[in-house]
């Protein structure tokens, strides 16, 4: 049912073509609608006309197959991490992750909890961190502008890093998820 072939290493394209595609990708980032934690409450004002995010080309899509960006809004428990990995691997390349809050950097205020992760970068490749607890809608838009400038310069390579070092990420993920029943690569 799943394709068990491991991912192919991505190749390089011509530079001018790369620049055009980067600009096109940066100006129309679509976000998967998944509220993983506390920070999801400040994603709703972004739709309204006060902090309009559609003027940057950002829209919310219900399915990961039609999206580019996954927003991890806050802490992650191990039960959610299993579902997030599945959603992340279903997003088509190229894909980016924006992490909100200090719980993703080094555990935040739940650093000694038995159910939340400490460092998100060990399990999924993060491109942009946004500060705040929780970040204001203006701060989230600021994070998206940083992501757009990174894409235009060609520095947002989290998805390539994930494909090339899949063994490292898988080993970390399997260490904390004890009942692993996902296929080796799910795309």
């Amino acid at each position, binding site marked *: 049912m799943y394709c068990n072939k491991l991912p192919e290493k991505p190749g390089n394209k011509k530079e001018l073509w790369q620049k055009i595609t980067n600009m096109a990708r940066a100006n129309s980032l679509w976000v998967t609608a998944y509220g993983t934690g506390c920070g999801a409450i400040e994603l709703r004002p972004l739709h309204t006309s006060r902090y309009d995010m559609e003027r940057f080309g950002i829209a919310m899509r219900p399915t990961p197959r039609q999206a580019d960006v996954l927003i991890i809004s806050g802490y992650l428990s*191990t*039960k959610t991490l*299993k579902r997030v990995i599945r959603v992340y691997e279903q997003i088509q390349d190229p894909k980016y992750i924006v992490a909100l809050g200090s719980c993703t950097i*080094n*555990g935040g205020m739940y*650093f*000694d*909890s*038995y*159910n939340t*992760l*400490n*460092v998100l970068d*060990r399990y999924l490749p993060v491109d942009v961190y946004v500060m705040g607890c929780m970040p204001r809608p203006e701060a989230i838009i600021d994070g998206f502008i940083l992501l757009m400038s990174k894409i235009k310069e060609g520095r947002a390579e989290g998805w390539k890093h994930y494909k090339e070092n899949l063994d490292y990420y898988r080993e970390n993920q399997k*260490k*904390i*998820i*004890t*009942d692993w029943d996902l296929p080796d690569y799910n795309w």
Partner: protein
Amino acid sequence: MADDVKKELEMRFPSLKLVRELGNYLHIMVKAPYSVEAVLMAKTRLGYGILQLISAVDRIEDGVFQITWILENYEDSAVLLISAPYPREKCRVPSLSLIWPAASAFERELFEMYGISFPGNPREGEDFLLEGWTDIPPMRRDFDTEKYSMEKFGERQPREHTDPRQYVGDIVGEWDTTLGRKRRGEK
């Protein structure tokens, strides 16, 4: 109001102890074999028909779990708490899920968090909050959550702490951190 309820309960259970009484709020402690009978008597004869919560406190120094049933009377807006100590090893408490269907959710959670078994609960043993948990029940007092978190999720980079003495030490000189307490007369 609470006086009448207290008198009736004292007539039936002469060994009960009063924990707190305040207007319409009453908290009593009975012995373990009489606890379910007290709860059912409160429901049928004294009008406390709603079960709000089943809670447990781990009294590890006495070797017991103190189970508390919190009942409410909607017509007179009164609250009744009934507590009973149960032994800590192989704890078994009769289940009330046939009378109140919501009790099965409370009992499932206590089974997962403390290891208290409620025979008679139709959904006992199903995963409620944790998934793939293999250690001892986490809410017990002898479970160290910080150590578990450091072992499972790995080291995190904490903030750097600087000693103010290296910046203002030569201006202020030596100071005594217990000076405030000495001035107030505490130890």
